[in-house]
């Protein structure tokens, strides 16, 4: 029950940050909001693993954290240099 409450709080804050991802005036605001939502999703995946009693979700959370970090850096490099070469 406690896990479900924390998961609902995380979903609510993700929707708050999604406003900034939609209405951000610059591309950097959107990149920042997407990064924040991704790092909230890591905790949400861990909580889902505890709610349903499946610890394999932690592997998904770890991989998602790594992918989120690399995706942010690749996105910034793509904006800054116009390509990923």
């Amino acid at each position, binding site marked *: 029950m406690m896990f479900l409450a924390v998961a609902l709080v995380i979903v609510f804050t993700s929707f708050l940050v999604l406003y900034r991802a939609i209405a951000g005036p610059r591309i*950097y605001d959107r*990149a920042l909001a997407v990064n924040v939502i991704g*790092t909230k999703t*890591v905790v949400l995946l861990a909580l889902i693993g505890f709610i349903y009693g499946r610890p394999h979700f*932690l592997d998904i959370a*770890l991989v998602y954290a790594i992918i989120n*970090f690399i995706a942010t850096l690749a996105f910034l490099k793509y904006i800054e240099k116009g390509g990923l070469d």
Partner: protein
Amino acid sequence: MIEIIIALLFIAGSFFLTVGALGVVRFPDFYTRMHPAGKCDTLGQSLILLGLIIYEGASFVSIKLLFIIIFIFIANPTATHALAKAAYVAGVKPWKEFRQEAGEKCHLPCDSKTARLAPTLRYCGRGDKK
């Protein structure tokens, strides 16, 4: 006793996540928005995952959770730093408001004396304005 500690950690983590999301929504500039995104999120997530570690006890799952905490503590400020550097290189101006224009709200105590002291500052209002 352990459940009280877990509940306190969860409440603190949820508080930090909510405050960070409010800061990302409400702050006036990109560089000020980076402050809640870099700090509150890292601390809130680490507190919630620490609560999960205490709930689980000493096992293989808690070691995985500890790895996630360590990775978030390294990666999240690095991503925020890369964002700030990319925005600074691209020429995003920081948020300043000193001079009061007609009909616009000014947060700093600015009157004609302040405007005379700083005549080169440009605009007053939200930082996203050009």
